[in-house]
């Protein structure tokens, strides 16, 4: 175990090489060939981990400037976002603001302006923190992740991407290339709500909701939560239980059912008990807010 003496947040206390590949193919080659290499994009998590010796690396492969990973584009049925797009770029993207307001709302709540200017959507997902702000919205959007390696390309639904705290399905030599988010013709109300210690903080608990309703009855509901389980989770049981209900009833039932779908723990930010309690309120609030937004759009 490394002691306090091995930490250094002024100057990274380990020596490594740095590569900035010209294109994705070179990045993939480096990743295959350089022993102990790690991909870095924004560095907002990785550099902290290096300073606290949570990881040791031999080389960094910086993909943050690769044009192939820096795009937001709108296709017929989906929006595609390159993995090296920064969180602030998503906040400011007109495509994202129009088509993915839920993702934008979550992105706005991530870190500080300074952090958002560095942090990337790909980094936020690959770090695989249970509290990753972009994960719950992407879960309810049914996003698909495109993973590339020298061996080829594969697509993974986001629900299958996270395998545990800090663990994802990425294999050695693989890089997350882009996130593809289906754009529905239906109109949804949306809401991302997050509890935190201060207004610049990682979530204690967070909820993303997409909602469609007719005549006051829920016809489609999608709910996901962050920071209350080993990974960000989709709450399908909650979704099933509230479709067909009137909004008042739906909010109440959602709040009751959510406890069955989460398994929070105690950590630096909060307690398991509080997360369980707060999730009930958070889900109900998010359902209500999504519904109210839906009504506004309807008008």
């Amino acid at each position, binding site marked *: 175990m490394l*002691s306090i003496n091995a930490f*250094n947040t002024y100057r990274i*206390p380990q020596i490594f090489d740095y590569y900035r590949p010209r294109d994705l193919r070179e990045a993939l080659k480096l990743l295959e060939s350089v022993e102990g290499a790690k991909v870095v994009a924004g560095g907002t998590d990785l550099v902290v981990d290096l300073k606290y010796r949570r990881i040791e690396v031999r080389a960094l492969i910086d993909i943050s400037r690769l044009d192939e990973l820096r795009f937001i584009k709108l296709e017929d049925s989906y929006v595609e976002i390159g993995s090296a797009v920064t969180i602030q770029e998503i906040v400011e993207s007109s495509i994202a603001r129009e088509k993915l307001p839920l993702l934008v709302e979550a992105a706005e709540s991530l870190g500080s302006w300074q952090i958002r200017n560095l942090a990337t959507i790909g980094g936020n997902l690959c770090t695989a923190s249970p509290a990753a702000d972009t994960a719950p919205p992407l879960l309810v959007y049914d996003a698909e992740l495109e993973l590339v390696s020298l061996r080829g390309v594969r697509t993974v639904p986001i629900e299958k991407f996270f395998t545990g705290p800090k663990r994802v399905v990425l294999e050695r030599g693989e890089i997350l290339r882009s996130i593809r988010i289906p754009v529905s013709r239906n109109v949804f109300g949306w809401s991302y709500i997050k509890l935190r210690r201060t207004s610049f903080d990682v979530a204690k608990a967070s909820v993303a909701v997409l909602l469609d309703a007719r005549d006051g009855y829920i016809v489609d509901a999608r709910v996901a939560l962050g920071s209350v389980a080993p990974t960000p989770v989709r709450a399908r049981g909650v979704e099933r239980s509230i479709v067909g209900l009137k909004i008042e009833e739906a909010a109440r039932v959602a709040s009751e059912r959510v406890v069955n779908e989460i398994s929070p723990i105690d950590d630096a930010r909060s307690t398991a008990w509080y997360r369980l309690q707060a999730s009930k309120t958070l889900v109900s609030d998010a359902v209500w807010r999504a519904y109210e937004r839906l009504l506004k759009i309807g008008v």
Partner: protein
Amino acid sequence: MFNFIGRSFPRHDGFAKASGLAEFTFDVEVPGMLYGRIFKSPHAFARVGRVDASGAEALGAVVLTPDDVPDRLFNPRLISIEEDTFKDWRVLTKVPRYFGEPIAAVAAPTEDTAQRALEALRVDFEEVYDPVLDPFKAMSPSTRPIHERVMRGGRWIEVKNNIAAELRYSEGDLDSEEKRSSVVIERKFHASRRYHTQLEPKGAVCKLEPDGTLVVWTTTQTIHNTKILISQVYGIPMNRVDVRKVLLGGGFGSSIHTNLVTLIAVGLCLKSRKPVKLVLTREEDMVHDHVSFEFYMKVRAGATRDGSITFGELDNLIDVGAHQIQAYPILGTSLGWFVSLYKWRAVKYHGRSVYTNKVPSCAIRGYGAPEITWAVETVVDELAEELKIDPLEFRLANYRGRGEIFWGQGPTVKSIIRSDGVPELIAKGSEIIGWKRRESPRVKTGRFRRGVGVGRGFHTSGAGGPLSGAIIDYTGAVVKVNEDGSIDYITALQDHGGGTLDAHIKIIAEELKIPPGKVRVVWSGTSTTVYDVCTHASRGVFTGGEAARRAALEVKKKVLEYASRILDSVSPEALRIEYDRELSDAVIFVEGAPEKRITLSEVARVAWQRNWGSISASVSYRATVAPPSFTVYFVEVEVDMETGVIKPIRVVAGADIGTVISPELAAGQIHGGFAIGWSWTVGDEVSYLENGVPAHRMSLTDYKLPTSMDLPSDEDFIVLFASTYEPFGPFGAKGLGEAASNPVIAAVANAIYNATGIRFYEIPMTPEKILKAIKEGE
């Protein structure tokens, strides 16, 4: 009435600070310097066997071990007189008593080499003990002693049951007062250990002059006590230690003493004979040196049916961590704060400071007053409620105000209150906050509930007094008129950012009738200044400002004397001095004789040309009183009954600081005092795992501070100043820094009660605790 006092002028160091060009310790560089790193104990309580430096030395590093530093105990804070100074620290230890305690240090030509050398040090531990973390368990006779003996002054004393210091006090007939009380309330309070989180981590840079003089730049609130301590520990004459004044990136008590990092840097410099820079990383700063004291208080108090307070009893147990900084004085001041808040007819006090294997505690803004005030103001609120008396009326009837004897900094520092703005502040503040519309928590319903609370507090202006007492408190100032009439102001007094030195500039300007722009604060060191004890106890303006005024007054006398010669008046007493806006200078003149007129600049020039000598004054000043600055804060909060989240809605903060010298900077102290108090109430806490490692708290990622979005906006924060005049203060001024934060926890806690109907007796009052209490109440 005044030319400059009470008016706004841009602070003298403002551009340098905003542009980042101002130099802090972290920015000091000396050619050829080595970079230091500290080996911090990975165990909270252990005994070191061997320090193997060979690996580090092979890398070219200089290694400092406990055997390389003088085997001499000391206390990093030189504020008590020698016979009341408890000494249990060493520069480097063979018996680490808290996680992070320095055992060794390295210095190398580059930072990377220093880091590698640090990691190459091999420290064997002969024994690793279970740390003693609970102060109540620490007092059990079967618990391993953290210190077997320590020094008090020059003699050894045994430490029994890990009790570092103890103080008992009683006054009046408590039993009979209790008997005649209609209501008695007893409550227990717990105030967490809080980290100062000054934005600049602590550090030091040292070099040796060719003549052997040691020059030191360091984060400190006191350059002279740092000089004295270095001299005492390393046996260097004081005139061979020059501690230079350098900007301090936030104090709040974190550098009220000489930080250990300073003494380690000196050790590395003396051993290597090279300049050394040793600055802490944030994680080191958090574990290595100093958090607040942790309080366990039990308060009992009574009152009669008609609303008179009868008695007050305080049992005060303080967890001081592994070493003493002011374990003994804090017991006296805690008593002082308690006694001086209300007119108890009988008082009983038992204070104990207890050692544990945690980071040592030192003063944090308020030095115990925020915690004691919270406990007392909660119990006072509860007494008033029991008696069905308005809490404001109850306070007005019972508080210690004008004409009363007042202690402040403990039993040896008593004086009579001469200025008191409490009635004015209560009247105005309650009007603005809408106190009369305040409803009982019992009638409140709904999810988001608002509540209004009040907290009344005070702080002393300095620690002066009529008798010498057990505490050292005096200061000095040098004012020098240059040959063109511009002024150099030379002081050792440190400005933590509150604008203390800008107040001094105005005080000097006011006395000499010259514009503040003509006064320059000279950045100097211990070699070129007269002694100042420390910027602490909210004394910077009251004591330091008065010293500056007295020096300016002496200078003025000389100016008038020279002017009298030039103008050929019968005596200096025939002259008047006034500020001339057009000339932007002081003019000295004979009333009714328009031709008999000269500017101060001209006097200075003539004195130079005619070989009359320099006009200057050096003053050493001890204040004979330490008057209270009163603060009355009204706070409105909103509590989400479903998540326990609380938000500040409005603050009406009233302060009685006598004459207000710099309105916008004084308001800034109040805003900042509220901010830190809010942070203490809702978030700040250093807690520990079973092995004595600070839990989750070795970075600002998890030691969260409120942001611009979490505190009231300028529109929701109203500052009131009482219209008082303190006869002993410079131009009627008193202190402010700590008074600004002292009533905050109390006001917020009372507001939370008014919103929810639930009282919390432990800080921080996190959403987790609030929600739990709400659910338990349902």
